[in-house]
């Protein structure tokens, strides 16, 4: 039956910026990977590529099961997660105060911004030999690489987070008689924190992407190490499993940050 009313609601799922049902939004996120998985399975099942170039999903899963049952997966994951957490936390511990100072004092911004912007483009991989000379071949060297890969991007992003807050908030603090230090800690920091939290979420993702680089040299355990080892034997199933597993851990990290952020900053999600 055609609708009799003169103004029918516009139909279609591809309307600019319009909402779609929540279930559909979530489902779409599963459908695309599922289709890719299906295509992958078909290509290998039909023998269109040689297993060396692309092992089947089953082989990759078997490689994963193997690592899980002999305990290497748990050991690799715990070693890598430890390095990620320490490397990222060290970068963050310095980037937050430095970024806040750069975002609020022009002198500090002027002094550090050109330097950091330059270092940010330097390839971290190229620093591996130096990092070994400086930090040895233990965990410290891996953490140093993760730190270098994270810090310089993060500090500039935090500076920007801080700069976007309304200047009149600072002025309000000044008229209320607060000192610079109090305004930084009690007004600027909380106002910028939701944005800074988003930066945390993005930058820990980048730390994950540096894991393989960090474990390139002189590591005997770790998710990245396992991939590099598999490369030597052309064990493509292990390489693919390791890569996918790092992706999954990254997704999990992202989810944890997202949910924690929503809990911590309820005020920022309130709307009319």
């Amino acid at each position, binding site marked *: 039956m055609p609708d009799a009313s003169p103004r029918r609601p516009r139909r279609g799922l591809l309307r600019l910026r319009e909402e779609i049902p929540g279930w559909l939004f979530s489902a779409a996120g599963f459908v695309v990977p599922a289709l890719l998985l299906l295509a992958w399975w078909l290509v290998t099942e039909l023998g269109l590529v040689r297993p060396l170039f692309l092992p089947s999903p089953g082989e990759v899963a078997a490689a994963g099961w193997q690592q899980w049952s002999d305990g290497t997966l748990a050991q690799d994951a715990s070693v890598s997660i430890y390095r990620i957490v320490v490397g990222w936390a060290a970068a963050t511990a310095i980037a937050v105060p430095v970024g806040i100072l750069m975002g609020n004092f022009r002198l500090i911004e002027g002094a550090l911004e050109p330097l950091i912007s330059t270092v940010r483009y330097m390839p971290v991989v190229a620093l591996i030999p130096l990092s070994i000379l400086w930090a040895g071949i233990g965990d410290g060297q891996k953490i140093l690489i993760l730190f270098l890969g994270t810090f310089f991007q993060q500090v500039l992003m935090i500076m920007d987070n801080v700069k976007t807050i*309304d200047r*009149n*908030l600072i*002025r*309000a603090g*000044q*008229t*209320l*008689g*607060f000192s610079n230090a109090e305004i930084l800690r009690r*007004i600027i920091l*909380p*106002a910028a*924190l939701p944005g800074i939290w988003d930066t945390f979420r993005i930058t820990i993702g980048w730390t994950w992407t540096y894991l393989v680089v960090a474990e390139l040299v002189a590591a005997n355990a770790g998710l990245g190490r396992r991939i590099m080892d598999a490369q030597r034997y052309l064990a493509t199933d292990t390489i693919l499993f390791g890569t996918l597993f790092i992706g999954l851990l990254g997704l999990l990290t992202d989810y944890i940050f997202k949910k924690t952020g929503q809990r911590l*900053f309820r*005020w*920022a999600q*309130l*709307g*009319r």
Partner: protein
Amino acid sequence: MHKLVIDGVGKTYPGTAGPVTAIERIDLTIPENQFVSIVGTSGCGKSTLLNIVGGLEDPSRGEVRIDGTPIRGPGRDRGFVFQSYSLFEWMTVAGNIRFALEKSALGRAEKTELVAHFIQAVGLGGFEDAYPRQLSGGMRQRVAIARALVYKPAILLMDEPFGALDAQTRGMMQELLLKVWEDHKVTVLFVTHDVEEAIFLADRVIVLASRPGLLKNDLTIDLGRPRSFEIVTESAFVALKREILANIREETLKVMAAERV
């Protein structure tokens, strides 16, 4: 004795294409508890003047004195209300107002009482625990007014506080502001570009000349108080409005003529 003296204040910014004068020279003396509106074309330096009195910007020339003492930076003898609300969004309504009392020597109980009093005064009873993002623009600005008054500053500085509100809300806020002001007398400097708002609220309207920022006119608004919104149709009100609008139109034409050259 005059509460607030603006003595030969001028402001010049070092622009990229040579220095830009925002304020040429302004002299004003304002007695205690006077409500002064400042109007002018955009770019006449009215917000700059307010920032200088607030201590948020330093004047290039001259000085501002409160009770005879030159000001040095911002201070708790002045409260500021900005157009952009500028509330601390991670604090509740009561939290925002209480935050303004942090530097005060009052005891806990007295602070709590003051906060409650000002929440009632601006008509926000029942919204103590709401967060700013849950409030409408008018309600947010009421929080800002309460926050600026709760620590009892001698001078209240308001920079187009109702500029972002819709016309109906603005009218309600003007009446609310007058009511709060009559109950808690304070010297007010109120910057606006709305001539009707300027007259309705004030004891005195200052018209600034467009660049280079000089005094154009200084009118006494002798309309009696308390006022209600009906006053805007009275002939005395209309005459004042006509005079100020003519002043501003003259200045606007000057700006346009200067731009054409």
